[in-house]
């Protein structure tokens, strides 16, 4: 399993940092739970990648929304 994403490539605004921190902790917990439940590595990788991709997409929308709220004026 690759290291969990830290979204360093994205300029995460302060308002979203608690969400990102919480999400990283929840991802780590999910990986641990899947391992403990005996789920195979491939399925764990698939699961985590799917969750990360979804969150990343929404995070990008949230960042755009926040940037836009200032840039619009």
């Amino acid at each position, binding site marked *: 399993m690759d290291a969990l994403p830290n979204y360093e490539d994205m300029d995460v605004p302060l308002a979203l940092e608690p969400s990102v921190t*919480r999400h990283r902790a929840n991802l780590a917990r999910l990986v641990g739970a*899947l391992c403990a*439940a005996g*789920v195979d590595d491939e399925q764990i990788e698939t*699961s985590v990648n799917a969750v990360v991709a*979804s969150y990343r997409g929404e995070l990008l929308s949230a960042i755009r*929304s926040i940037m836009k709220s200032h840039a*619009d004026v």
Partner: protein
Amino acid sequence: MFDCKLQDEFARLAALQRYEVLDTPPEEPFDKITSLVQTVLDVPICAVSLVDRNRQWFKSSVGLDVRETARNISFCTHAIESRKPMEVHDALLDLRFAANPMVTGKPFLRSYLGVPLATPDGYNVGSLCALDIKPRRYAPQQIEVLKSFAAVVVDELELLSMVRTDQLTGAASRRAFVDNVGKAAAQFARHGRKSALIMFDLDHFKQINDSFGHPAGDKVLRAVGACCGELTRSADMFGRLGGEEFGVLLYDTDEQGAMQTAERFRQALAGLQIAHTPTIGITASFGVAAFSDRFQTSEALIDAADQRLYRAKQDGRNRCCAADRKAMPLGQPDCVGA
């Protein structure tokens, strides 16, 4: 130990409403999670169930062919009464569920595992649940898996809520606002439910930015957000449509009522004194339209309100203009204001 947030149904429903997720279209992040739970726990049915006042509504589900059920037959309404996962090994042996129509009839549920979806401030708005049509006991490790996925669901709900809220003003984002105008259009078409739209734009806002700088402009927008947020009825919606343009969606309101509300907003904004050196005062121009035979779609309504807003600007700003002359008291022009 007594947990007051588990007993406070009013606050729980308010927390659910804050997400503005009920009756929204399916979204990939939630569908991925229900699909993953189905695979990992090897269950035929999984759902993200949000427990509304009288129903449970599924933001996502696999293995179910309905989007909602009555709350009084839902398993999840029991699951949200606790902080812990709820497990029903065999519904036929559980007095709460043995006569449940989803147990005695399709889809013939027999076992249930549900983890409450708790908001960061502690309200259980629904549950992530795994259901089977045979009796079943889950291993503690499997329960942990569902708990972990439930935490990810809440992450997504929180993030989605941030996307649907303008972070500067606290108003609904354009995306959320336009979605709701669309829903109001559907309700008008289906049930004839009247709704009206107010759109307004701050006058000479560019001058504020140019004269006092963008931080002062942000301060003005925040003040507008706070003022209009307070004036907006809890059932209605206040949104920022972009830049210095805002909208108020008024349910169960005709154009005449909307004009009265718009005038109240106009006066409140004109009375604002925004702390700055020197103090900043603002005005705004308003356009008003209501669903009618002329304006039946969200696009038509937004266009009509926008045109009246433009007219208010042309007529000298700091005024409200209606799309329909009949909205005005007899003998009055179709615009009112300073």
